[in-house]
């Protein structure tokens, strides 16, 4: 199933992409996605970020569905 991954700020600069599409097994979790993406982009390993799925913060054990948008949220600094 295809999911979209969005990257921002320092992570976007380090990976060199602001988004990528991943094809994951049905029932894959955020954690599975992270394992896959850290394999493709090792610069992400050990980085600090929160996770959002479809614009809401969520945990790494969240199950994903086709068409979900996942975002890696590095430490925020608005305001």
């Amino acid at each position, binding site marked *: 199933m295809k999911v979209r991954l969005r990257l921002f700020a320092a992570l976007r600069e380090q990976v060199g992409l602001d988004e990528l599409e991943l094809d994951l097994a049905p029932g894959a979790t955020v954690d599975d996605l992270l394992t896959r993406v850290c394999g493709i982009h090792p610069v992400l390993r050990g980085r600090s970020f929160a996770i959002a799925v479809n614009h809401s913060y969520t945990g790494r054990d969240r199950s994903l569905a086709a068409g979900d948008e996942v975002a890696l949220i590095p430490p925020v600094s608005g*305001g």
Partner: protein
Amino acid sequence: MITIAHAPIDLADLFRIPGDGASGGVVSFVGTVRDHTAQRRVVRLEYEAYEPMALRELEAVARAATDRFALDAVTIVHRVGILLPGEVAVAILVRAAHRAAAFDGCRFTIDTLKQTVPIWKKEVFADGETWVGDRP
């Protein structure tokens, strides 16, 4: 009213307070770009937002402030893009029946926004740049 602005924020426009008399106190916070950080001169800030989620989180902050302090209204405008020292990055206006709730509600709004909203700022110096809060 919650907005993400891509152009300079017009404070005069924001301060047009409705004259319905419901609120006795209006408190504002305006965040501007400082020209220095830890004695380094800032050339510019670059603000980036995950816009659809930032709007959602800003609305959540406004709702939480309204509920907690019994506010009449919360306005938040956050700018994104390239900002020079002195420019307005964020403006918050809070209205309440009385001033105590307005002061507390405004403080809560900016403090919470800074913790939860997916907006990031990069400080650009003459000799380098850094994303604020980045922990390598």
